């Protein structure tokens, strides 16, 4: 069945049998099964990634469905990770889909990140974004980071290659919580995370299969109202970064104790109030 589904990709000049073979052996972890994670997980499953992990601790709500297209009205109340995994298995029964219902936390971050080859950040809050980046640096995993708000989207790959920055290199100081929550109030046009999440699947497929040029040191901005995409050239990794620099203070030992909620001044996904969950 695998060969039937993957037949079309095999004959692509840019995506030959070796690349497909690497993809089939790779594991990709999608953190968040919401607006970004739904399309990312579906396209990774469709592409035949060997092992797909889905992390989410929340339940499907009716108000999610305008952008979270792997869920259904009949899945309301179900764990999001289970609902997304069910959709992925229905699309491709030949891959392994792991469900992580406990969320991505300082306690399990290193174990989870180390168990996969490529990590996809499809979360919706600053605390989770710092935690995931730090875990990827320590576990030495490339991180496909996407975000969407209003009618804007952003996409990049962190912690890849000899000089790719991590999230902390870009944003060493956390934003004020009110600048986040203010934006959160604005909501999101549902198709915008759809575009960014599908592009996250593309970047993860490129990283897992070793083809193409991943968006390392490049930030792609999508301005959906004008239909304009802009590529920004980003800094290299910063020698003084406390996560990926020469003398890091965030280590395998210290990460589990690091106060991500305190650092960002906002609760991570664990305890985020409804109004923060875009």
């Amino acid at each position, binding site marked *: 069945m695998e060969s039937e589904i993957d037949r079309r990709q095999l004959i692509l000049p840019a995506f030959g049998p070796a690349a497909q073979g690497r993809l089939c052996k790779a594991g990709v972890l999608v953190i968040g099964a919401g607006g970004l994670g739904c399309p990312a997980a579906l396209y990774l499953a469709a592409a035949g990634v060997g092992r797909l992990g889905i992390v989410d601790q929340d339940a499907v709500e009716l108000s999610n469905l305008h952008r979270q297209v792997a869920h259904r009205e009949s899945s309301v109340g179900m764990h999001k990770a289970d609902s997304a995994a069910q959709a992925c298995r229905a699309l491709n029964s030949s891959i392994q889909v792991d469900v992580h219902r406990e969320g991505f936390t300082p306690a399990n971050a290193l174990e989870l990140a180390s168990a996969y080859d490529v990590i996809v950040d499809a*979360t919706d809050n600053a605390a989770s974004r710092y935690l995931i980046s730090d875990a990827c640096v320590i576990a030495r995993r490339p991180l496909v980071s996407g975000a969407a708000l209003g009618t804007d989207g952003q996409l990049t790959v962190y912690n890849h290659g000899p000089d790719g920055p991590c999230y902390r290199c870009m944003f060493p100081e956390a934003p*004020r919580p009110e600048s986040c929550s203010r934006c959160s109030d604005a909501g999101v046009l549902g198709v915008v995370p759809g575009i960014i999440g599908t592009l996250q699947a593309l970047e993860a497929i490129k990283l897992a299969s070793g083809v193409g040029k991943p968006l390392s040191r490049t930030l792609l901005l999508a*301005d959906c109202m004008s239909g304009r995409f802009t590529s920004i*050239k980003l800094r290299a990794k910063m020698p003084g970064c406390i996560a990926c620099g020469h003398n890091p203070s965030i280590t395998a030992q210290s990460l589990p104790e690091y106060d991500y909620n305190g650092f960002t001044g906002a609760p991570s996904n664990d305890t985020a109030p409804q109004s923060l969950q875009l």
Partner: protein
Amino acid sequence: MVKLKIELSGGLEILFGNSKEHDLEISQANGKVTLADVITKARDDLLTDRPELFMKDDSVRPGILVLVNDTDWELTGTLHTLVEDGDTVTFISTLHGG
């Protein structure tokens, strides 16, 4: 006199009269204009709302990325970067939503 194009992205346009593109003219006595000057002048001339969501001390607030002609200001000299006539300076608020 240096004429610049100012672009806003990621929701910052809400603080700038809900417009993503602005023109900005700056004159300095010695003729040299830095990004530090641009940030202050953008706040004085263009910002319409909540300056504390744009600036902190003499720079932009954490979470805002500054670009000169689509290049991260970390590569050009951050606050000390010299800008020239016709340059585009972009302020991007990093997004967390998903």
